């Protein structure tokens, strides 16, 4: 399929004035400059992709554009005029709508109610909702998107893809001229993703400015008219589609996936992964799962992890990876068997698992992994609090707490000047190191770490990989769950691929070293086992 022609029509027809833009925008958080004098224009009738590593400032830029965040310096322009957006509601009134990664729908309300949330058609002087008209308007909006669904169904029963359509229909209901999407395809299957991209093209052709963040560089090359690359809060590269439909920068560099990745990272990829140590099979597995799973979410996961081994778990979001891990430490109801160091165990909660040396670092750092409102020290010592307790818990040894925290700050090179302050004042990378350190302090034999580098900048990423590799070298058995394939490939000795709640395949150490192994994993994860011709060549 080739949409280059369509793109040109769309771009030529509307790309005259910048619908929106930022000039020299700077945003500072304590200890980190999330955006550093970024200037960029977003044209009507164009799809503008913003790419960058985690922590590069993409989300911050989107927040500034959608009015959720006021920049410390610089200005936001609308139709060329400086403007101040006082909150997301003001932005929506100004025709700027954002589709968040975690969709903002009311789960218990119906599709029709969600689409027209806050702008319900009413009668009786605004007292009563005009239900027939509400349904009709919602139906019309969804039809514009080419989506058909039961308008009376509760949103909680919809698939993620349908939820996204509802969210976009909601934006259209508010007559959005600027549409901002944060990783819209991250949670979609391949087919759904291509449908969504098709929709973005339609919205663009109708003259809207479409902005989207994506980690999938292939789709960026496919669909974007312009690409801005952010790194460490700075705009480091721009690409624009030229007259013959090729994305290239001003100096003529063609925006291949490699070129973009290079710009994002700013150095050679691959160097961030430490060398892989040798696993020690032959000993008793540190942990063994036998036909294990989380009730109703996963099943038949059988794996042995030996001391010193790093086993990766890949799979799409919703494939049951996290649920399985949570079931191991008793956060969900398990099915099947667990053997820890040869002995069969069932853990009723993370506390029990911890006593037997099995620990789980959650993917959801802010909601589950840490207490953001508490100090770094309190976060650091919470799992191992018993070890700091004196007189039957009547006193916590504050001196020991401080010195242990200081030791980990030193050991993991955590940037934390005042550990007594709330941990939310630290950057994502440093928070993640604490999320890891608090469990290492319990001296685990098995470490299950879920999305170890989500929301972490590239420097801290490399350090976290180094730490995990070093821990494995010392004999820790690691299970790394991740959506970032390069991370699994670079770090793990072997990778299990999960799909629909069970293990769909395994990629061995030898296969991980081969070129094209990323594709192999993707294919297993999405259920395409057969080799497939490259279509976009």
């Amino acid at each position, binding site marked *: 399929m080739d949409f280059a022609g369509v793109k040109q029509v769309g771009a030529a027809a509307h790309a005259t004035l910048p619908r929106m833009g930022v000039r020299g925008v700077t945003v500072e958080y304590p200890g980190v400059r999330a955006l550093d004098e970024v200037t960029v224009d977003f044209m009507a009738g164009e799809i503008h992709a913003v790419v960058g590593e985690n922590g590069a400032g993409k989300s911050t830029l989107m927040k500034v554009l959608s009015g959720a965040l006021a920049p410390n310096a610089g200005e936001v322009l609308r139709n060329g005029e400086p403007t101040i957006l006082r909150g997301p509601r003001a932005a929506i009134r100004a025709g700027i709508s954002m589709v968040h990664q975690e969709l903002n729908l009311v789960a218990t309300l119906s599709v029709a109610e969600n689409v027209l949330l806050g702008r319900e058609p009413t009668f009786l002087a605004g007292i009563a909702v005009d239900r027939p008209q509400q349904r009709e308007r919602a139906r019309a909006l969804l039809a514009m998107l080419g989506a058909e669904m039961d308008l009376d169904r509760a949103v909680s029963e919809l698939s993620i893809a349908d939820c996204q359509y509802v969210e976009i229909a909601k934006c259209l209901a508010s007559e959005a001229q600027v549409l901002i999407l944060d990783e819209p395809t991250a949670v979609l299957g391949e087919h759904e993703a291509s449908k969504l991209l098709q929709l973005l093209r339609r919205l663009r052709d109708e003259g809207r400015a479409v902005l989207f963040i994506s980690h999938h560089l292939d789709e960026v090359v496919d669909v974007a008219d312009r690409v801005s690359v952010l790194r460490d809060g700075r705009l480091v590269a721009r690409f624009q589609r030229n007259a013959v439909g090729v994305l290239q920068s001003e100096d003529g560099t063609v925006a291949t996936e490699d070129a973009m990745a290079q710009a994002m990272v700013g150095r050679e990829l691959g160097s961030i992964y430490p060398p892989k140590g040798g696993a020690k099979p032959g000993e008793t597995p540190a942990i063994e799962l036998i036909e294990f799973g989380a009730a109703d979410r996963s099943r038949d996961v059988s794996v042995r992890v030996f001391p010193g081994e790093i086993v990766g778990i890949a799979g799409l979001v919703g494939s049951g990876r996290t649920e399985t891990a949570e079931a191991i430490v008793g956060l969900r109801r398990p099915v099947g068997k667990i053997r820890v160091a040869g002995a069969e165990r069932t853990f009723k909660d993370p506390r029990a698992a911890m006593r037997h040396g099995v620990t789980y670092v959650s993917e959801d750092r802010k909601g*589950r992994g840490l207490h953001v*409102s508490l100090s770094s020290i309190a976060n650091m010592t919470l799992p191992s609090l018993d070890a700091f*307790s004196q007189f039957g818990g009547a006193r916590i040894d504050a001196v020991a707490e401080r010195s242990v925290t200081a030791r980990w700050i030193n050991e993991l090179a955590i940037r934390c000047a005042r550990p007594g302050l709330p941990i939310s004042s630290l950057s994502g990378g440093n928070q993640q190191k604490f999320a890891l350190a608090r469990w290492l302090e319990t001296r685990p034999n098995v470490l299950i770490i879920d999305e170890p580098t989500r929301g972490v900048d590239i420097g801290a990423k490399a350090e976290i990989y180094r730490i995990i590799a070093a821990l494995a070298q010392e004999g820790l058995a690691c299970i790394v769950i991740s959506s970032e394939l390069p991370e699994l490939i670079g770090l793990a000795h072997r990778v299990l691929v999960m799909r629909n709640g069970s293990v769909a395949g395994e990629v061995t150490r030898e296969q991980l070293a081969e070129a094209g192994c990323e594709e192999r994993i993707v294919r297993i994860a999405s259920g395409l086992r057969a080799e497939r011709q490259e279509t976009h060549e």
Partner: protein
Amino acid sequence: MSKSHTGMAVRMQRFLEHWGVLVAFVLLFAVSAFKQGGDFLSIENFRNLLNQNAAVGILAVGMTLVIVSAGIDLSVGSMVVLAAAVGTTAMNALIEAGWSEPSAVVSGALVTILAGTAAGALNGALIVFGRIAPFIATLGGLAAFRSIALAIAEAGEIRSQSPTMFSALGRGGIPLPFAENSAGKALTISWSTVIFFAVAIAAQWFLSRARFGRQLVAVGANETAARYAGVPVAWIRFRVYALMGALAGVAGLVQSSRMNSVSTAQLGLGSELDAIAAVVIGGTSLRGGFGRIWGTVAGVLILGMITNILTISGVSPYWQGAVKGAVIVLAVLVQRGSRA
């Protein structure tokens, strides 16, 4: 508005968020002293202020811990009357059975505290194991516990059969040197005040220095994260309600010994609101995860002083509730500040 102006306003706001309760305390203190002159500043007046508010103070300290855990306990007033009714009845029965007065009084006191603990533990069990929202579970307790007390005494009064010791506990105290009351007798710091301060100091210690307090804060700040971190969430939550019950028992003991009787229709009526109000005025977040006992103590005394001032100024008791209500809302507005 110029930048320095906003800076000033923000700093003022932050200051009030933190120390507003102390500012209010000092202001009220000054107003009281002005209105009542030397009378207010007398040691006797302080003694009475503390004495009158000790029971609510003990409840408010417990309530602070419950609220830190992101819970609420509406049943405290009813637990007070239930514990006092059960304890006093037990004491009377023991005296009638021929026990010596000291052993009957001590046993009765223990029964009072145990009865409160049992009621609190029932709340905790319903909330933790029955998975009933604290508001609902303790709303049930609010109705049920008083009803049981009323049934025990047939809605009447339970008079203490202890000739002297029980009321000595309620009215006696540690004599203060050099202090005399208006009638020329030696002044005492009442036992109830001593108990109030002891409970407050212990609670402050537990909240900031002990494992239980740390885990309580963790549960209140984010229960899910606490569970993921291996905190025994159910056990912690259960314990805080049982502890609240025990403190309600203590408050019941303080009140019944002061009155030398238990009026089942009146004792502890509405104290859940006073206790919650004191906690809120003191700056503890109703969302849980943060609390300060000293703020609560200041909140209790502020409420006490307001009542004092209004009474002395001749404001009708009917209006006093309105003034208190306004103060509570104002306190929340000032402290909520920029977090709103």
